[in-house]
């Protein structure tokens, strides 16, 4: 069975990291592929819960939305504008909240419960604070705006690192469980 945590962190990496060649090409790590990874990763999680289905549907909707936004950018029409990007960023934070609720359910009263809960607290606080700071940065002076955007970006970078560390631990735990089950 494939490791769901690899797909979860892969998905988040595609979404979080925006890379373009020489600043001219579109993002070579498209966000919609990241959401597709999320859909598959959530599907692989060893849990039976309504939240799993709803999270998969949410990820699929975000995949479609981000594809439309990316297409809009690639074509250069900019019909949707930056507002849509920021809106999707907010929806991503809500989506990650759902993912963490599911992960808390997966690890309820198990080895990784404490780590999942701590990561949830810090990750969500960092992502949401980063988003709010960036929202307020729109309406301040140029120099202060740069500082605020930088702080917001740093907070979200820390959230990304936390999630990577968590997924690594989750991946390790999944492999151990797989070994135990295969021995049985």
């Amino acid at each position, binding site marked *: 069975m494939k490791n769901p945590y690899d797909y979860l962190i892969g998905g988040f990496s595609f979404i979080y990291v925006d890379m373009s060649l020489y600043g001219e090409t579109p993002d070579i790590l498209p966000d919609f592929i990241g959401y597709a990874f999320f859909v598959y990763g959530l599907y692989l999680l060893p849990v039976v819960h309504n939240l799993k289905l709803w999270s998969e549907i949410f990820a699929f909707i975000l995949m479609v939305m981000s594809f439309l936004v990316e297409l809009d950018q690639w074509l250069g029409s*900019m*019909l949707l*504008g*930056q*507002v849509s990007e*920021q809106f999707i960023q*907010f929806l991503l*934070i*809500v989506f990650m*909240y759902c993912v963490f*609720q599911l992960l*808390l359910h997966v690890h309820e009263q198990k080895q990784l419960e404490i780590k999942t*809960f701590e990561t*949830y*607290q*810090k990750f*969500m*606080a960092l992502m*949401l*604070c980063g*988003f*709010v*700071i960036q*929202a*307020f940065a*729109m*309406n*301040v002076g*140029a120099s202060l*705006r740069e500082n605020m955007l930088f702080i917001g970006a740093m907070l979200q970078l820390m959230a990304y690192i936390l999630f990577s560390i968590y997924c690594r631990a989750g991946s390790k735990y999944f492999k151990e469980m797989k070994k135990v089950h295969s021995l049985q």
Partner: protein
Amino acid sequence: MGDFDNELFDVLKERPDKEPDKVFSNQMRQQLQKGQIVKRKRVSVATILTIPVTMAVLAFLIMICTGQTLDIKSAAQLSITQEKSLVFTGSLCILIALLTFIIFVFSKGYTKGWFIFLMFSLSFLAWVMNTVHAENQHLEEPTVPTNSKSFDHDQDQSLSLSDKEGR
């Protein structure tokens, strides 16, 4: 929980002085029986009117004592700079309050419920209000093209839908 943990606490549960003193318990009961029930203050119309009336009387006294009139009209008209700094200060206060609330919710470890819903709603509302304000600012202050780098940076950052309207 392991056997060791249960043994540990079973010993403490049998602590010899665990039960409250009977004299103390009876004294407490008597104290509660006697009453000291504090009735909640009711806010009447008189209470509500007292505050503005008091303020009006004080203002009148100040006018008489100092010989100055209170020119309310000019006091209400803030200069543009004062208005901008007031908006900036207000926004900063709202930002700090919102960040504090977010940190509070997650430090308490809430995973569902009213607090979570409120937190997401307020964050979304903050983004919407800032977006609308940025749009209004952009429309009110029509930009004049310059070669300034900082201006170009501002243009990039602004959320402009007006360009699309022009196309």
